[in-house]
């Protein structure tokens, strides 16, 4: 079974870590991940950039709407994710708009650039 494990935290605190604190935390996290990676059980992992770098595509009346900032509704919940390697934000927005158009629900797509921790190697 594939699981997505999503990390929630206070970004102001996390992005205020000093280089030493960051390295200490990451070292411990890598140590926990290593056995899974060796067993071929670890997929792509990473850290999302600050929410200031986020863009959200929402269902619009005609065309989907592109909004600055992260997805901030509380009624909807995280239902899935894609990782795409594209040229720029325009391409990511275009792709999300296509998804939004064919998706019958009121689904929003939050576009978050991220730093790769581990490229991952799971077989499905």
């Amino acid at each position, binding site marked *: 079974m594939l699981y997505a494990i999503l990390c929630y935290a*206070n970004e*102001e*605190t996390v*992005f*205020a*870590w000093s280089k030493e*604190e960051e390295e200490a*935390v990451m070292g411990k996290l890598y140590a926990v991940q290593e056995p899974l990676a060796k067993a071929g059980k670890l997929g792509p992992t990473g850290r999302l*950039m*600050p*929410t*200031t*770098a986020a*863009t959200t595509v929402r269902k619009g009346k005609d065309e989907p709407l*592109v*909004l*600055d*900032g992260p997805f901030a509704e509380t009624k909807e919940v995280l239902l899935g994710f894609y990782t795409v390697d594209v040229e*720029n*934000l*325009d391409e990511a*927005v275009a792709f999300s708009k296509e998804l939004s158009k064919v998706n019958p629900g009121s689904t929003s797509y939050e576009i978050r*650039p991220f*730093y790769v921790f581990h490229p991952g190697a799971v077989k499905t």
Partner: protein
Amino acid sequence: MTDIAWIDLALTAARPQALGALLRYFRDLDTAEEAFQEACLRAIRTWPEKGPPRDPAAWLIFVGRNSGIDAVRKRSRNDPLPEEEVLSDLSDAEVDMADRLDNSNYRDDILRLMFICCHPDLPNTQQIALALRIVSGLSVPQIARAFLVSEAAMEQRITRAKGRVAKAGVPFETPSAAERATRLSTVGAMIYLVFNEGYSAGITNPDNAAFCEEAIRLARLLLRIFPGEPEIMGLLALMLLQHSRAPARFDRQGQIVLLEDQDRNLWNRKLIDEALALLDKAIRHRQPGPYQIQAAVSALHARAARAEDTDWEEITLLYGMLEHIQPSPVVTLNKAVAISKLKGPEAALELIAPLAEKLDGYFYFHGVRGGLLMQLSRNAQAREAFDRAIALANSPAECAHIRQQIDKLGAAVAPA
């Protein structure tokens, strides 16, 4: 991380929102600061035991408001302080309390707190000092060290600046959209001042260099509460890009390393990636502004794997655009540097000749001019320009850098 280290980060992060709300509530900066201080002390006492609250800012506002009221009452010899127990037992009430707090105001609270530090009567250095004290919560000794003045002098400077702010009157009414936009751009300029104070210090003064990170933190905060502002995206991108080069800007002896000579492997890729993502967002708004354009120039340098891969043509175009939006001799000087890469030093010298009078007291003008003249082997004139630059240098590192150029001149002349 220890409890105390975590609490310290959480208090710093919550400060602008909490202090901004307390300022709106008490309408007096000193009372608000005292109340915030009191709330922080209680946080340090109770959080390690009870665990951190889900919303630290809401907690601090609630506790600060109560203790501030107590302080005001105490001064008028009224009711005694409530029992510590009453204030400590907040965990259950927290969700409820967060709802009761006036959340719709928090954006303007933070903006107001930053805005009062930018009073036009205050010189730049006082704006920076005041912002670091009030918004960032740095201690007076920390700020004094960064500005290389005594604590007493800095204390006096900050007190005087606060007095001016109080006398001018803090604008408490909810700003109109136009007023908000003005405040936002004023605050953006102040944040960039803080950044530049750190940037120009380089590695010579580590207390000062920390200002770069503080400015980046403040810009992120501003962008989080005003997410659709392309110029704030541009400002943050610009600072991230400039800061990404910090590890490469000076050599081991503390000498300046020019952009074209820097080891690009030392540049911080994470900061660059974040900046490029922000610029992508900003560009989609199709509202170019000075920060976005400067960030775009900086991004072209970041995208070039080697100095010789730099897209000078695009940079020239961008500086042309900047000249159009915000004409200034300094922008023309920067454009001239790009032109020198495309068309040679002669064309660049021609372009900067009319600037001589306006930029006569500007270090970079004479430095650039000397460099261009040196490329043309007009050594005597180059020497003259470099001498002028040394006289205007802002730091020992700048001075040393120009001396190196003069040494090169000497070496070129020697064989003849």
